[in-house]
């Protein structure tokens, strides 16, 4: 009985804590991914623009 109670309370607290931290972390990871994609995307489009200039 006590064991189940302690297990439930600990799991509850751990889950709530994870839920609290997962929101800003996912947001940050999304920003980092967008930052990475944005940087690499810019360079690709830049290369493409340069190759078009050469052809013309």
């Amino acid at each position, binding site marked *: 009985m006590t064991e189940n109670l302690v297990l439930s309370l*600990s*799991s509850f607290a*751990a889950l*709530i804590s994870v839920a609290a931290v997962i929101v*800003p*972390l996912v947001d*940050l990871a999304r920003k*980092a991914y967008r930052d990475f994609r944005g940087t690499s995307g810019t360079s690709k489009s830049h290369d493409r623009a340069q190759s078009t200039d050469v052809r013309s």
Partner: protein
Amino acid sequence: MDADPGQRRPAQTLGRVGAAVALWLTFSVLVGLVPILLGYARMESRANKVTVADVIARGEMALVCVGLAAGPLGLLIGTGRKRVFLKIVAGGMSFFLAALSAGYSSDLSANELEKNLELSSFLQTLTDDRADVDARKKALGDLTRLMNNPHADKNVIMRNSLYLLCGTVISGAACVALSELDA
């Protein structure tokens, strides 16, 4: 990409959060568990037949959990006012676990102390020259009863302590991560 020097890039912040959590896990959690591991090692090296449950049964692990839950809570309080709601939730859970662990630890240590006092009282009666035969018989009966029916189940205490430790580590890591996000 020209970033504002005062503002960190998201990837850098993620790295700092990971480093802070790793630092906390290594130097707080692992080092906090060292006394329990050393206690077990010392008992075993003295050729005592002990299990990890015997070492934990006095409530040391629950006591370690109190420290592990309270440390990140202090870190969280020292940060700014961003993400206050999330900080309250994570810090509240850490505080809750610290209180639960403190209650459990104090109960276990009081239980152990009570058992030791009873044992010394029975042994005093048994070794007392002035005690009559009936008193000695009663003390011996009580001693046998105490040995056969221990106050607490060590395996249950070990499992409860492990549950508390897991919850505390997860909750503490969340608090450390949140405090580093706003550092």
